[in-house]
């Protein structure tokens, strides 16, 4: 074994997986996990823990993995995270725990994400369930949204003894874990549903089909339904479009729509009613994780797929692993390219897209070099489908129906980072509804902060 290198993880062959929706990464087995764990230096001042938004005791659980005591490892992780099987799969480890790993200074960092995933998968397969509190403290808390921030907040509060009800607008709990991230990256029936079941086993109730702000308002939850505090984890919101001509043509979708049809509504399966216009020649505009997910979904539905991104590869916001997988599967990257118009046929369907080449100029406000069009470099791509993956803007449903809830210039809810406290007493918020579109783990961090804030607020009140 070369201690400077990660134990390689088994994956489905790119040619095979490009035609199915099964999970790409197969994960470690016991032996591989224990070998990888033995590479860990068990640093006293564990920098990886500082790199983890929810501060999992990483050397602690890795030590247990090395010993082969996986249940003990699961318990260590459960102290900090309710969704380890999810995080092990979708966290951007390279910029968090693994990014600061001391092993990584000379050689490759410990494969912390893959080890976390192994422990979580082992727990599921062996029926290990985190323990529920013996009795509740009688305080009722409402959590809005069952995505990563809501589930984390609810799980933490339930462990402290609160009676928690999650309200979910869609017909299935899980938020972006269900409607957004595809099956081949995050299996729904095994991984996501089990982790949600585990949160329920802590005593959390989930009511689906409730749109807060419409079916019932936050004011009503507080004044009529007996909730003493509310956590808003309602997610990112409305998809953005570019505002270029032809964008309302048939065959132009937001990544949200395309992914929701495929993931939540299972349009890729014949036995489900929801249709999806899969496309044969597809361009996905954008360079984030969502863009990679949409592109790889279209590929699996049989399309020839291009990613069109206005900056260069170095600026791609997606996880390195996703870009790597997308390339392996045959997705073509048109970098430094920006659409200017979507071309349509006489019936209003997409027939192509006019684009312009870009070059990188001076750094902009985000610190990244600003892409500038190269005059005279326009060209046309022949396409039947365009998927816009440009991010989201906040959904006004909750902020416009809740009295005294302050929003910022970008219409995001204003909340204190360390407690989730908003301008309205008893109302806390976190995740994409506060920050704008970010990652699963950052939403979980905000969910934990919200749980702490609510606990401080309610324990202060009862004294």
């Amino acid at each position, binding site marked *: 074994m070369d201690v400077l290198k990660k134990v390689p993880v088994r994956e489905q062959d790119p040619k095979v997986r490009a035609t199915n929706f099964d999970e790409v990464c197969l994960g470690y087995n016991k032996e591989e996990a224990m070998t990888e764990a033995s590479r860990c230096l068990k640093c006293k001042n564990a920098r990886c823990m500082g790199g983890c938004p929810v501060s999992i005791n990483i050397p602690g659980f890795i030590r247990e993995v090395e010993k082969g005591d996986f249940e003990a490892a699961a318990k260590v992780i459960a102290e900090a995270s309710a969704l380890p099987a999810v995080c092990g799969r979708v966290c951007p480890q390279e910029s968090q725990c693994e990014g600061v790993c001391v092993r990584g200074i000379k050689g490759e960092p410990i494969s912390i994400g893959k080890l976390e995933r192994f422990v979580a998968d082992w727990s599921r397969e062996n029926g290990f369930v985190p323990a529920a509190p013996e009795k509740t403290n009688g305080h009722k808390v409402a959590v809005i949204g069952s995505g990563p921030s809501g589930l984390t907040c609810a799980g933490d509060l339930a462990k402290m003894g609160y009676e928690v009800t999650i309200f979910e607008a869609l017909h299935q709990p899980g938020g972006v874990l269900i409607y957004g991230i595809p099956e081949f990256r995050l299996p729904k029936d095994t991984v996501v549903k089990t982790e949600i079941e585990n949160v329920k086993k802590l005593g959390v109730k989930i009511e689906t089909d409730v749109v807060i702000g*419409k079916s019932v308002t936050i004011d009503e939850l507080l004044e009529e339904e007996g909730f003493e505090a509310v956590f808003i984890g309602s997610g990112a919101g409305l998809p953005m479009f570019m505002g270029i001509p032809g964008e309302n043509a048939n065959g132009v979708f937001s990544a949200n729509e395309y992914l929701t049809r495929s993931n939540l509504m299972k349009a890729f399966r014949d036995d489900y009613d929801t249709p999806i216009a899969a496309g044969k020649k597809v361009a996905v505009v954008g360079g984030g994780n969502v863009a990679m997910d949409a592109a790889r979904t279209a590929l699996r539905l049989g399309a020839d797929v291009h990613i069109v991104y206005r900056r260069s590869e170095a600026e791609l916001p997606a996880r390195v692993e996703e870009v790597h997988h997308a390339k392996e599967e045959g997705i073509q990257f048109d970098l430094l390219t920006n659409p200017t118009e979507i071309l349509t046929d006489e019936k209003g369907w997409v027939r192509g897209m006019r684009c312009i080449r870009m070059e990188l100029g001076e750094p902009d406000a985000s610190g990244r070099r600003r892409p500038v069009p190269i005059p005279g470099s326009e060209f046309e791509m022949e396409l039947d489908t365009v998927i816009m993956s440009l991010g989201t803007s906040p959904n006004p449903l909750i902020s416009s129906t809740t009295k005294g809830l302050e929003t910022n210039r970008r219409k995001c809810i204003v909340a204190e980072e360390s407690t989730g406290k908003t301008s309205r007493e008893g109302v806390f918020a976190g995740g994409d509804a506060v920050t704008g579109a970010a990652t699963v783990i950052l939403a979980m961090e905000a969910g934990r902060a919200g749980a702490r804030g609510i606990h401080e607020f309610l324990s202060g009140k009862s004294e």
Partner: protein
Amino acid sequence: MFQILKAEKLADKIYLMDVEAPRVAKSCLPGEFVIVKMDEVGERIPLTICDYDREKGTVTIVIQVVGASTQRMCEMQAGDAFQDFVGPLGRPSEFVNEDPESLKQKKIVFVAGGLGTAPVYPQVKWLHEHGVDADVIVGARNREMVILEDEMRAVAGNLYITTDDGSYVRKGMGTDVLRELVEKEGKHYDVCVAIGPMIMMKFVCLLTKELGIHTIVSMNPVMVDGTGMCGACRLTVGGQVKFACVDGPEFDGHLVDFDEAMKRQQMYKTQEGRALLKLQEGDTHHGGCGNCGGDK
């Protein structure tokens, strides 16, 4: 689960159901809609709220068979239950927030086309309960397709019915009636609310523009989640992109780009039709729909 308390056939392929959904019944207002998903494999179908009973906790919906999911939905009976029933969605009609006194001064006419009679009914009923008697024009293909006539008559000021083939009351379109009322009978209207097929709403808008009547339409584009997340229901209103589910479904009809909206509505027509054929013909479906590749 959301139990169906009553299921009744109103006309060919049109069904009415009372569904137990206390949260929706408690908070819904005219102009809003619900999304219903009948079972695990069903689509999320946006449906009109036709009536509601806050005490009983029930919501009345009207469904027309257009695709595989609605076909299976319409076969459901009292005692069955929908897996999901979520709402109310969208924004309520403008008038529910208007000053009651100034509302009473307004002359309002509704033009309902076919299934559009269902969402018009709770609006007219709400106005009636608030002391405003609105005129209602109901247009339908033929006598059999006129729905909710007695209910509408009970709450409307004047009810005018017209049929495309002349099999009931009179022959002609809703627009013909509206033109006659204004031009021949000298009626004055401040507001027109038109709800029905997009093509009908487009023609009502062309007429009311000519007659100078402010017009509200209720758009029913393709939707998935219905809460603003997917953008499938986007349309152009006054040169701006709007989402029917959160910005609508009601818009100023004179600003709506109907031609674009109608093109967008075609997007899944073929897929829906294909799924329906597959359902009806089962394994015996071997092409002919022109889409499934079954003839290849």
